[in-house]
C-alpha cells in the first residue's frame, strides 16, 4: 500500500458505517491522511453501492456507483460477514490494531454481536469509538431510524426553512454530510484528548441533534422571548433589500443583501432607478415594510442582466451579491474552477471521474484516490495488518467469513 501523508497519517480507522452520514465522516478523515478500513460484506452491502434517495436505483454493478465513489475516496475495503463468529474475531483483532472505530447501525445492534464499545475496549483499552444514530443511543426513541430528511424534520430546521406560505423544507442529503462532518470533528477532539491523557472514549452522536445545534440561536431565542421563529424565505429580520432576483435568461437568479444604509446608497447608485428615491425606502425599517414594491424595482434592473453582470456591478460598489448556483452551473463557475474545487481520480471501473476536493486548502489534505472495489483490500488487511498466511485466508474465503 502506498504510504499515507497528511496530518492524520498513522491513524487507523475501523469503519463500520454505511449510507451517507457515517461514510462522509470517515471520508474527511481519509482526506486528512488517516487509513480508513471499511468493513462491508456482500451479505450487507452499503446501499450507496446500489441505490440512493437522491438518484433511486443506480445502474451498473456494486463497484460502479459514482455516489459510493464520492463518499468513500481512498478507503480500503475489507469484506467480512459479521454473522460468522470467525469474522467477529477478525474484527476484534483489527480494532486492536486501530485507533478509532466508527459505526452508524441502530443502537444496540453491534453490542448484540459482541462488538460494542465495552467489548472492543477490552482488546483496545484506549479505543475511540463513535456511534452515530438518528436520535442518539439513549432515550425512549433510541431505536428509531431515519435518513437526512427525518433528521431535518425532527431537529427543527425544516420548520424554519422555506417560504412563509409554503410547506416546511426538509432540505437535502447534505444534512447527512453535516452529521458526518460533526462526527469527524468529535473524533479529532477525542484523539487530541487521548494524546494528552492516554484515555480513549465512546462518543454517542445524534444526527438530529447535529441539526438542532446548527440553529441553536433559535432555541436560545425562544427561551428568551417565548416567540416561535417563523419561516421567512429569503428575507431577513433586519435587512432589505434581501432576496433573490430574476435575471436575464431561464432559471437565472442573483441574490442581493443590503446590510446597512451605506450599502443602500451604493445599491441606489448602481441601479440608478429614480423610484428608489421614494421616502418609503429611506430607512431599513421602512424598506422592510415596503419590500414587495422595492423588490419589483430591483428586479427591473436585474432582469436585464446576467447574474454575473449584476454581481460584478454590485460587488464593485461593495454590495453583497452572488450568483444563485445550481449543481450544473457550479461545475462551470470561473471562481470555483480557479480554486480547483474539482479534481480527477482514476477509478478502476468508472475511469477518470471528477470529484469535489477537501473543503479546506491546507497542507496534507487531499483527494486520496478512488473508492475501493468491494473487498479490494482483503489480502492487504488480512496479511499485512493481521498477519494471516495465504492458506488461512483461502479457508476464510471458502467458509464465507471473508465474504
Amino acid at each position: 500500500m502506498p504510504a499515507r501523508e497528511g496530518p492524520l497519517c498513522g491513524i487507523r480507522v475501523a469503519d463500520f458505517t454505511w449510507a451517507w452520514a457515517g461514510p462522509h465522516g470517515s471520508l474527511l478523515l481519509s482526506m486528512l491522511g488517516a487509513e480508513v478500513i471499511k468493513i462491508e460484506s456482500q451479505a450487507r452491502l452499503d446501499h450507496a453501492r446500489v441505490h440512493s434517495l437522491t438518484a433511486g436505483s443506480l445502474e451498473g454493478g456494486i463497484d460502479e456507483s459514482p455516489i459510493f465513489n464520492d463518499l468513500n475516496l481512498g478507503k480500503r475495503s475489507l469484506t467480512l460477514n459479521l454473522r460468522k463468529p470467525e469474522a467477529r474475531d477478525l474484527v476484534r483483532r483489527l480494532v486492536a490494531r486501530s485507533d478509532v472505530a466508527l459505526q452508524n447501525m441502530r443502537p444496540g445492534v453491534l453490542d448484540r454481536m459482541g462488538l460494542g464499545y465495552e467489548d472492543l475496549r477490552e482488546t483496545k483499552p484506549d479505543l475511540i469509538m463513535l456511534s452515530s444514530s438518528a436520535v442518539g443511543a439513549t432515550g425512549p426513541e433510541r431505536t428509531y431510524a431515519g435518513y437526512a430528511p427525518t433528521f431535518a424534520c425532527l431537529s427543527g430546521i425544516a420548520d424554519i426553512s422555506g417560504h412563509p406560505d409554503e410547506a416546511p423544507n426538509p432540505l437535502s442529503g447534505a444534512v447527512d454530510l453535516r452529521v458526518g462532518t460533526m462526527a469527524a470533528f468529535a473524533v479529532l477532539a477525542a484523539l487530541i484528548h487521548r494524546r494528552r491523557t492516554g484515555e480513549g472514549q465512546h462518543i454517542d452522536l445524534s444526527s438530529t441533534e447535529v441539526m438542532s445545534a446548527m440553529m441553536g440561536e433559535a432555541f436560545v431565542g425562544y427561551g428568551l422571548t417565548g416567540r416561535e421563529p417563523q419561516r421567512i424565505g429569503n428575507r431577513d429580520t433586519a435587512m432589505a433589500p434581501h432576496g433573490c432576483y430574476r435575471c436575464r435568461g431561464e432559471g437565472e437568479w442573483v441574490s442581493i443583501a443590503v446590510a446597512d444604509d451605506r450599502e443602500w446608497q451604493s445599491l441606489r447608485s448602481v441601479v440608478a432607478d429614480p423610484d428608489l428615491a421614494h421616502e418609503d425606502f429611506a430607512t431599513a425599517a421602512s424598506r422592510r415594510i415596503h419590500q414587495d414594491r422595492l423588490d419589483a424595482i430591483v428586479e427591473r434592473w436585474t432582469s436585464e442582466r446576467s447574474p454575473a453582470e449584476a454581481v460584478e456591478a454590485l460587488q464593485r460598489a461593495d454590495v453583497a451579491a452572488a450568483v444563485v448556483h445550481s449543481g450544473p452551473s457550479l461545475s462551470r463557475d470561473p471562481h470555483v474552477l480557479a480554486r480547483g474545487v474539482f479534481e480527477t481520480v482514476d477509478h478502476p471501473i468508472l475511469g477518470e471521474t471528477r470529484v469535489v476536493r477537501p473543503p479546506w486548502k491546507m497542507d496534507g489534505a487531499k483527494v486520496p484516490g478512488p473508492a475501493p472495489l468491494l473487498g479490494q483490500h482483503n489480502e492487504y488487511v488480512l496479511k499485512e495488518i493481521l498477519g494471516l498466511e495465504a492458506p488461512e485466508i483461502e479457508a476464510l474465503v471458502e467458509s464465507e467469513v471473508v465474504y
Partner: protein
Amino acid sequence: MPASGSRDTRAPTRTGALSGLSVLELGEMVAAPYCAKLLGDLGADVLKVESPGAGDPARLRGPFPDAEPHPERSALFLYLNTSKRSITLDLESEEGRRIFARLAEGVDVLVEDRMPGALADLGLSYDALAARNPGIVVTSITPFGQTGPNRRHRSQHLNLYHSAGHTSPFGAPASEDGRAPSKAGGYLGEYDAGLTAALGTLAAVLGRELSGRGQHVDVSKQEAMMGLERVTIGRYANEPDPFAGRPPGGLVRAKDGYFIFTILQPHQWEGMVETMGRPAWADASWCQDPAERRARAEEIQRHIGEWAAGLTRDEIYHRAQAHGAPVAPVRSVSEVMEWNQARERELFRELVHPEVGRHTQPTAPYRFSETPWAGSAAPLLGEHNRAVYVDALGYSDQDLVRLSDSGAI
C-alpha cells in the same frame, strides 16, 4: 498540541477533551464564532477579541427579550459565544496591533474571518505571526477563500447559501410556483463553514506533531457548503443530466401538521404498509415492485395523505417507527425543546449569564463518555480586559486607563 501532561488547572470547568488548547478568536456573527465555540465547549481556552464600542455585530442581531435591543441580550450572540472570554481591542491602532501580536505569540490557534489580505495589511499575516510562533495554526474563514477571482466579494448568509448549490442542486433554480428557491432558515451555511473550519483546525493541531509546524488553513464558506453537496455537485461535473427517478417519499399533511416519510429499503416499505393497516391499494401487484412505486410516487403520496389526514403526527411517528419505517414529524422550535427524547438526553441545559440570568442553551450533539460537555455562558463585552491586560500581559492599572482612553482597547 498542548504540552501539559495533566488536566488544565486554570478553571474547574475546563476539563473537556480540548483542555489546554489555547485559541484566539477574531470573528464576528456566526461562522468564526461557531468554530471557536465548538472548541471552547470542549474545553479549549478561547479568548475572543472584539472591537471596542459595539463589539461583535451578533450582539445587535437578537432576538432580544421583549424585543428590546441590548448588546448583552442577543440570543444569537449568547449561543455562539459560550465558553469564551472577551476582550476589546482595536486593530486599527498601532498599540492594538502590538498587543494582538503578543497575544498570538502565546496561543495554539487563531481563528479569524477578516477579508483576504486584511490582516496582512495590518502586519499580522500568517507569515508574520508564524515567524514569532512557528506552531500557530491560523484558520481563516472567508466567503470565497483566500484566492480566486471572487476572493474579495462580500457575502451575507443569503448570498452564501444560494451560491453553493444547496437550493437547487438538481438544476436551474425555481420553486414550483416560479419563485426563487428559499434558503434554509437561520444561518445554516455559516454554521457549515464554522464546523468545517473547526475540523480543519483540529487536524492542523494534530498534524503539528508530525511536521513540527502549524499552518494556515484556508476555509472558503462556499466550498464548505459545496463539500456537503459533493454527491450532487460532483455528478454534474461529470455528466449533464445524472439524476433520474427518485423513490417515493416526502412531506405529507397529518391532522396537526406535516410529517415526512423516506423509503429506501424493501423492509421499510413493508413497514409503511403495515403501519397503514395493509390498505387495498398497497396490495395491488404494481405496488410490489420498487421501480413501479418510483414511477407512481405521486399516487402513493396521495394515498398516504388520505390515510394520514385523521391522525396526529406523533401517532404516525411512533406507529411507523415501531414497524421500522423511517418516519418523522416536522417539529417546531418549541416542540423540540419539549420533546421527551431531547429531555431524556439533556440536550438543553440552563446557563446563568450576568445580564439575562438563567437561560436555556442547546449543549452539543455528541456525548463524550469521559469528557462531558461543560459549556459556560457567553462573556460580557470586554469582561476579561483586566484579567488579560493586567493579570496576564502585565500592564498596570494606569496603562489600562491609558489604553482605554486612547481607544486601543
